[in-house]
């Protein structure tokens, strides 16, 4: 009798422990990207609040994407038009994206701040570059916030600067990404 109960209890424990899965998919609830072009003759800043993304804490895989024509700011409406028409060619390449996998193995269920590296394919203007980008993660009970600062070289993504505006457009653009994510 006791033995049967023991087996039953053991079976129950095993059943419940097997169904606890620490992995879950987090979705961006609020995300923004802002960029800055600091050139000798002109400073251009623009930002977008339409960052979307998913992060699977079990597999450490992530995918982020933003619509290029959602960037606002610029120094004039014409500059925004040129950004979309001539440089980013947003009609041809409507989205910029980054998908890949976090390198470090951390326990995503444990609250705290972590500095990890995201490795994956970064696509801008239709050109893919494999990149490793450092990310600051703030893991809370039910959410993850991320922040990252990195640079994009226009040359890497086939974005050409005409000689006429050489001094007005930086060849290296500084980006800042911020996002709050919660479990789906």
């Amino acid at each position: 009798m006791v033995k049967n109960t023991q087996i039953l209890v053991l079976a129950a424990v095993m059943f419940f422990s097997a169904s606890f899965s620490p992995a879950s998919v987090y979705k961006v609830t609020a995300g923004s990207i802002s960029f800055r072009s600091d050139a000798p003759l002109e400073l251009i800043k623009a930002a977008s609040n339409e960052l979307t993304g998913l992060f699977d804490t079990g597999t450490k895989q992530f995918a982020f994407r933003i619509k290029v024509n959602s960037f606002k700011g610029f120094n004039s409406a014409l500059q925004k038009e040129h950004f979309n028409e001539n440089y980013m060619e947003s009609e041809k390449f409507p989205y910029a994206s980054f998908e890949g996998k976090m390198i470090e193995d951390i326990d995503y269920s444990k609250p705290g701040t972590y500095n990890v590296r995201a490795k994956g394919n970064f696509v801008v203007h239709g050109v893919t570059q494999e990149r490793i980008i450092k990310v600051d993660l703030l893991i809370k009970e039910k959410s993850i916030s991320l922040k990252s600062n990195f640079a994009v070289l226009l040359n890497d993504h086939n974005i050409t600067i005409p000689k006429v505006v050489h001094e007005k457009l930086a060849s290296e653009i500084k980006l800042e990404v911020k996002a709050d994510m919660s479990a789906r």
Partner: protein
Amino acid sequence: MLQRKIILIWVVWVCITGKIMAQQPTADSTDLMAQLENESASQKTINYTTATFKTTRLVNGHTVENVGKGVLDVKIAHRFGTLNKGGYELFGLDNATMRMGLDYGITNNLMVGVGRSTFQKTFDAFLKMKLLRQSTGIRNMPVTVTYVGTAALMTLKWGDTSRKNYFSSRLSYTHQLIIGRKFSESTSLQIMPTFIHRNLAELASDPNDLLAIGIGGRQKLTKRVSLNVEYYYQIPGYKIDGTSNALSVGFDIETGGHVFQLHFTNSTGMTEKNFVSETSGKWEKGDILFGFNISRVFTIGKN
């Protein structure tokens, strides 16, 4: 014995569950991307078409485009003399007429402008309003429709001072409904039904109300250069006898904040009333004028 059995079962179970978890369909990053794409596809957004033309004028006449809110567009337009004047006149370069204008965007869809042409010393003022915008997404609108209303004041001194001349005789009004569509990144077309009312007609046989229908378009040749064509067909019975239809061909060259337009046209005037209804030049006779428009935008108001 039983203890060992239990341990064995437990070990096997852990191995099995461990294996099952590893075999769970992992959210691959490409799967995640596909999920993001699906989610955005179901979102209801409107995509408004932008940059149908590079600037607010095609050659002489208006395009469907407006300047942005708070933007001031300084416009200088030049027309030289006709090519058939020959070498002595440097193929027309020795003669010139000019229009200076300022366009301002009150909102993104409403703009106003003033200008002054040397031709007949004409002042003009216009109001331009976007009525419909081309868009895709949850609202599909195939065309952009813009209304332009222009008033022109001719300020040349009256030739015949012995008769009673009225101030109102100097005025004319033009109404246009410009309907345009961006067919692709490189091709845009528009039609421009035009109605002109002039208070004074030179001859009693000439109508005061004139009608024309314009057609124009642009073809991008490179990212920053396009070929523009503009033609205004005057409706028979509603035109001044002896005038020709205005035909213009030119290039738009865009650099930073400037758009340079270089073109050939048979019209001397740059106000709607002049080039639509009073063009006297004929292409086949060599009455072709070389001209250019320069447009420079400044942001004045806050975005």
